[in-house]
């Protein structure tokens, strides 16, 4: 563009942007899994905030750090489990169930903290874990963890039985059930994965920020995660998505936001740009230009004339 931007000319700028992205990447990986199974998890933003505040508070209360992390991750499992059970066994639509969870968790957090920020819990060790302190030049613990999660997520989706079943349920849930896939369990597993990753992201975020504001921390992150996953090729109608793509999507969102602010563009315009990008990604997907396949790569669909697999609704 002809404008020198520090973010792109210095390794430091890239380091900063990647380190900012990791929190979104973590929940975007979970979101991708949930989108592939045909759901959506709007509760992750609040889940992160609760995990962050809970981590800080438990540390203040003198609970050993390892135990704190275990407890918080278990809370993440519980949130995912409740989401999954509400959706599969109670039959509440994914969007509504997780929207309710989003609101309720934030409310619980505000009541519990009485709106006061949680602060003063950060130790040197927690700073290292949260990534505010580097462990090597341009390298932080959250970066390594995120890399590990992204690889694990890709492997799960590509090489495991569960991964195959996730794609099957998202591709055609009724057919999958008829073919012997236990679709409810598969779906619950996806929400648990998403819940745990939100908790993990929250733990790291608390260490990074050194203070948690119950009203605003991680607010709106769920939509960033959806945006990242969609930019990365995930389809909201299920069956398709890529962890690798979602990571790139999350980094792209952070880069765009930072780039515009370096250029002194009114930050509200960056929101507009992000919105336009999401629409563009969705349109390209619909036109079949970007199709995330189960390999994790994107490809052009073959030019064979497609034979639709049709199935009438099951009548009783």
């Amino acid at each position, binding site marked *: 563009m002809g404008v020198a931007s520090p973010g792109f000319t210095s390794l430091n700028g890239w380091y900063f942007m990647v380190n900012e992205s990791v929190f979104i990447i973590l929940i975007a990986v979970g979101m991708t899994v949930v989108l592939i199974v045909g759901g959506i998890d709007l509760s992750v933003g609040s889940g992160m905030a609760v995990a962050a505040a809970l981590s800080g508070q438990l540390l203040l209360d003198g609970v050993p750090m390892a135990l704190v992390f275990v407890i918080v991750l278990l809370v993440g499992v519980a949130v995912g489990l409740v989401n999954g059970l509400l959706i599969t066994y109670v039959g509440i639509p994914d969007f509504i169930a997780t929207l309710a969870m989003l609101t309720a968790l934030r409310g619980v957090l505000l009541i519990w903290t009485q709106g006061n920020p949680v602060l003063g819990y950060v130790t040197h060790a927690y700073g290292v874990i949260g990534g505010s302190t580097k462990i090597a030049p341009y390298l932080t613990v959250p970066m390594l963890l995120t890399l590990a999660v992204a690889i694990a997520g890709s492997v799960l989706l590509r*090489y*495991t*039985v*569960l*991964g*195959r*079943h996730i*794609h*099957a349920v998202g*591709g*055609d849930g*009724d*057919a*999958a*059930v*008829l*073919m*012997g*896939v*236990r679709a409810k369990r598969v779906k619950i597993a996806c929400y648990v994965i998403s819940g745990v990753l939100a908790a993990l992201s929250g733990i790291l975020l608390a260490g990074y920020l050194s203070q948690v504001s119950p009203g605003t921390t991680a607010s709106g992150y769920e939509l960033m995660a959806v945006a990242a996953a969609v930019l990365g090729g995930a389809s909201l109608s299920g*069956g*398709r998505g890529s962890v690798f793509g979602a990571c790139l999507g999350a980094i792209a969102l952070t880069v765009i936001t930072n780039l515009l602010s370096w250029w002194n563009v009114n930050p509200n315009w960056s929101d507009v740009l992000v919105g336009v990008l999401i629409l563009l990604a969705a349109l390209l997907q619909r036109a079949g230009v970007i199709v995330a396949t*189960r390999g994790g790569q994107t490809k052009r669909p*073959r030019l*064979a004339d*497609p*034979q*639709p*697999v*049709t*199935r*009438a*609704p099951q009548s*009783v």
Partner: protein
Amino acid sequence: MTLAETHEEAVVQVSHISKRFPGVLALDDVTFAIEHGEVLALVGENGAGKSTLVKILSGIYRPDSGVVSLNGVETHLASAHDAQMRGITTIFQETTLIPDFDAMENIFLGRELRMKLGRTRGPFLAEREMRDAVRILYRDFVSDEADLDRPVREIGALRQKVVEVLRGLAFESSVVIMDEPTAPLSDRERNALFVSIRALKARGVAVLLVTHRLEELLEIADRAVVLRDGRYIASVDPREAGIPRLVHLMVGRDVDSVVPSAAMTEQTYPEEAVLAVNNLQRRGVLRDITFNLKGGEILGVAGMAGSGNSELARALVGMDRIDSGEILRDGRPVRIRSPKDAIRHGIALVPEERKTQGIFGGLSVAKNISAAALRYVTRGRCVIDERRERAIAEDYVSRLHIRPPDVTREMRHLSGGNQQKALIARYLLAGSQILVVSEPTQGIDVGAKSDVYGLIFDHVNSGGAAIVVSSELNDLTRVSDRILVIPDGGVAGEVRGGRGRQLSHGDYGVLEEAVLRLAVAAA
């Protein structure tokens, strides 16, 4: 049932199975067995209970009473997963595959091979093992490996069926159930499928084949079990019995007529057709359909499920696009590209899927009735006058005997028959001269059935016309003036119906047989 059929070596023994759905006894004390390595055909008219039985054996429905035994052991099939794990593989009537998955992924779905992890098998897919297994299956049964790695959405109906059959071959299945597997296939493709069925048989796998194409049985089945009205009727050797006897077993019954006596008055028709359809085509679904419909006439359309008859109804009212052909309304060509166009031209569809395509379950009966003709209940074309809406609805409710007679009641609380009547009221109010009624009596009880036909008769007697699309031949022969037989997307012939003629039960049997023969011959 004979003693021979209940000996304990049968791979599947069905004993005294009954299954009731609201308003209908789908299976009534059915007992029969499937022996090792036999190809057993299950035949019967639509509604005879074949699909229900298939679903019970596949673990999707649970029987109300009776038991299923596998290899002599009484077994409770808890889910589709459970049935599969016990060696029952089902190929459902509708293609049941994941469109984005390739052949291997579909074949092993739900029963994936896992990589060894120490002494047990872990969570990882044994991709290569599965690919090799599928490659061998393909080599043995398909003789080429062309489409192995393509998503099944791209490979065509036959190859999709083949993939489903291979699901049965890839495992130690003891029974493979096939529900109308040949419906989407051409003759050549059907023969290829039969080769696979013989391969299954050669391996000692039993095959339960559900089909309405009787000539297929002569070719492939060792034995045929006939169901009628949910009851076991007979087990015969199809080659010995022959098609006429099979048809007789399927149809031959004495049933009370559900057709009101109004049907029995002689009709005279005007010369001019109110609706004429010329060479209607919809690629892959309907071909070259030509017929006309006169005022005061009821035209029946017969065909088996999935044969294109409900698609014809959809195409007539613009829900599905037509590729070519002409529709004339009162002699003038009309273009119908949406249901709105159809309603404007006085043609309305009372749809088959009442719950999803017909009613607004959460709205009142009055709002349901006025839905297609809001212009009659609005003031200044935009504000709805609820009082007028209710008054009009009350008029219809009392004339059509809709129960309970409360127009403010939410539609979903009404019985199926009353919902059906309210839907007909909707299109009568909209001024539809031609009612296209698709499967009008599906899921409604006998009393309501008679009422619904009564409404249709009133409509045609007062100058309207109706097309009744139904797979219930028994009713269709009685209510129709003429019956168009559409077995596979094209018109196979026309049979004069029983409406307005004094016919005996035996005569109706003859009519039904004539319709069935036309359907079978063309398929």
